[in-house]
Each structure stands twice: as C-alpha cells, then as structure tokens.
C-alpha cells in the first residue's frame, strides 16, 4: 500500500460516511480499499452493451 493509495482509501472512506472507521481503523480501510480495487479488476470486461443483468434467479422446469 503506497502513501498515495492510503490517502485515496481514507478519502474514499470519508466519502462513504465512514469518518469514524477511517479515524479508528485506518489499516482496515486501506486493506479493504486495496482488496476492492483488485477484485473489480478481476471482473470480465467483454460485456456487450445489450447484455442484461441477472434478475432473481428463476430456473426453467424445462432445464431438468
């Protein structure tokens, strides 16, 4: 975690209303911020503009 990223993490936490968290648990904030960043980078990006989100899953009886 760089000083710059650490600062970004604290700013992001405060933006999310987590001022108390940022003040009391700066290490947790930094680790969560870094994890969220790397997690999002793992998401597939080959999504077509027309691809719909998943709605609440309803299996088709015909899939059996």
């Amino acid at each position, binding site marked *: 975690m760089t000083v710059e990223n650490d600062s970004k993490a604290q700013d992001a*936490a405060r933006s999310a209303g987590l001022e108390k968290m940022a003040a009391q648990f700066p290490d*947790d904030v930094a680790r969560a911020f870094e994890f969220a960043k790397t997690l999002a980078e793992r998401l*597939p990006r080959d999504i077509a503009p027309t691809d719909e989100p*998943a709605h609440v*899953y309803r299996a088709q009886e015909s899939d059996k």
Partner: protein
Amino acid sequence: MTDYAFLTIAEAANLLKAREISPVEYTQALLDRIAKHDGTMNSFLHISGEHALDAAKTAEAEISAGDWRGPMHGVPYALKDIIDAAGEPTTCHSKVMVRNSVPDTDAHVTAQFRAAGAVLVGKTATHEFAIGGPSFDLPWPPARNPWNPAHFTGGSSSGSGAALAAGFVPAALGTDTGGSVRNPASLCGLVGMKATYGRVSRRGVFPLSFTLDHIGPMTRTVEDNAILLNVIAGHDAQDPGSAAVEKPDFTERLGRDIKGMRIGVIRHFFEKDLEADPEMAKSINDAVEVLRGLGAEVSDITLAPLDEYAATNRVILLPEAFAIHEKWFQERPEDYGELTRRRVMGGAFIRAADYVNATRVKARLVQEYNDAMRDFDVAITASSMDPACLIEDEEANERTYTRQARTPFNLTGAPAMSVPTGFSSSGLPLSMQIVGKAFDEAKIYQVAHAYERATDWTQRRPPMAA
C-alpha cells in the same frame, strides 16, 4: 443402552415412532453431551435447555397419543445463530446484536421445524454476520473441529458443523452465500446441501447478500439431509426470492442405482484453475472411479474459469453486504470484529458500474452453466481445495479462504452438496461437491447416496466421540 450421540435422523425416527426411545431422554442425553464436551468445541452460542425439554415433552405426549408427525418429530436440531427462533436470541455472533436480539417470530424454516415437531436445542456459532471469521476478537470464541480441535471447522456455519461432527445433534441448519454450508460440511466430514436459490425461504434469516443467500441442511448422512430438506423446502410468498415450484419428496430416489446416469467432472476447477491438495484431489478422483464402477457414464465438463465465478460472486456480495451494514459501520465500527470490517467494507469501494456489470456477467454464467449441464444429470468437482488448516494460523486461514469451488453455485443458484470422500493422512476429512440442475436436488441425493453406500466415510467418528 442407546447411544444417542450418533443416531441418524432416520434411525431416531424409527425408534421414536415405535416408542422405543423417548424424545425427552434423547434431548436430555444430547444436552448432557453438549455440557460435557462443548467447552472444547465452542459450537453453541446459546442452549435452549428448558425450551428444548418442554418441546421434547410435548413431542412425547403427541407420539404417545398416536399423533406422529414425521421423521423430525421429537428429534433435536440446531440453528446457525443468524436464523430466528421465537423467544431465543439471535446474535449473529456479534457484539453489534448482543442487545435487543430476541425475536418474537420464527424464521420460515424454524416454523417448518416447529410444525414437524422437532426440538430446537440451541443456536450455533458462526463467523460474525456469516462473513467475518474465524475470529478471536468477538464476544464468543470460534467453533473448533471435532476431528482435531486445533483445526478450523470451515465457515461460516462453523458451529453447526462442529455440533454435528461432535454428536451433539443429528440435524442443523446453516446458510450459504459463498459456500458457508458446504465449507464446514467439507472440513468436518458431513453432508451439506445448498439447494437451488428459491427452494428454501430466507425469511427471518439475517441477510448477507440478498441475491446469493441460501439456507441449507447439514447432517451426517445423505438420507438425513434429504429428510431435512423435505422439512424446510417450499414456497413462501413472504420471501420475494422464493420459487413457486413443485416440492418433490427428496428421499424418493435414495436407493436407486445410478447405472447409466451421466456425470460430468468439472476437473479444471481443482486441477488447473486452482490446484487442490494432492490428497484432496486423489479422493475426488477415487470417488469418480467409484461412481464409474457403479455404472455411471463419466466425462469431463468445462465451464468458465473458476476465478471468473469467484470475482463475480464477490463483486455482488460485498456491496449488498455493505448496504446492510452501512449505518452500523458509520456509527459503531468498533463493535465489529476486524475480519468483518475488512471484508464487508470492501463493498463501500466497489463502483456501481462494477456491481451492475457483475450481475450481467452472472446472467451469462447462469446461461453457460445451464447449457453445459444439459447433457448431464449431475457433475462432480471439489468443494474445499485443502483439508482444515490450524485455526490459529492466520496466514493459512487467509490463504485457504478463497481456495474453494463453491461460489459458482451461489452465483448460478444451482443446487450443490458437499459429501465426504475420505480422510487425509493426518486424519482430517476430505470431500467433493455433487452439483446439479436447478430444482433437481433429488438426483444429487441419488448419486450421493449411491456413493455413500459404496464407501464408509460417513460411518466414521472423530476421536472425541470415544
């Protein structure tokens, strides 16, 4: 003299119905066993002693009067402590919930157990809010593995896993958002089913992630698991995710042979995407050969890489979890354990577009899974990649936390069950997953039961049983 500790539900039901054992004696025997051994296992957060004995007395009177309600009548069970039971505390294993935590209504699943005449003996340990653990900075210690108390139970339904393996109860419920029924089942030598999304109502269960949460039965045998799913499954109009589908008898296919059944092996999950521990991989491959020997037609099946499922699951799970905890995170972060803070807070930093895109990837993965399974009855893959690690080894817990192949089935909503496949050279349980098509749990039970009868893994007992 009856050894109550390791009676199966099926055995107990026969004895209770024939009035050869008493629900009161059965319940008292298990309460005594819990009092004697749970100081080591930490499986229970709350014991419903008097309420349990009252329920057992009621069951005894009803059965004596000829009013036997079914196989759970007079049978003790436990609930993961994020599931409500009227008059009993729900703490979610958290300081956040310690006050004002006694609900006045049952969760839907608890009401189903009550209607079946079952006896709730207590609420079991969990990772804090079903995500933060194993942790030593919470109001209660984490549950320990009866096969070796120095080892982790798996989580987050950790106390339910410990209680079953220790012979404290024959039945327990867990919840499963990224594998939390199947992980403790895998690491404690149990059978744990995450049924199809919508099969079991989530009403009255503290949520972690609305679109990924499932409630699931945990037992020591496959037959018992099917019996439990018979009790808790069914449409609930008050749960918006509940599916209005026909509920079969999940025990119906038990005992049928599996000759000619088509079984896929999702091998790349545990040989390429992640490399399972050699003993774990061998036990899964040995299990596949057992199934082939029983007449199944086995071939490999390929899905998207495991990490695609894992990342998509997490990008959905964390913002949903953060939305639930946001207010408390803002106002009282010190009341959470460190692991919960770190894991859930990630949800605050996921961009809205990434969350939406994850749900779009999810739709694609659901379709891919349904297409791939079209030519198969069930599929086999790993559950955990490793046997249970030492519970106090933080590095090992962190490393093995993501070494699993359970999240794909939370994402697709498809049914998935962990089944014991043997033991490591150090005596710790090994496992596989049997997964299926949506709402086709009965075929998973059929295959699992055939495998269970061809082996003896579920008949073995942990050293503490003696």
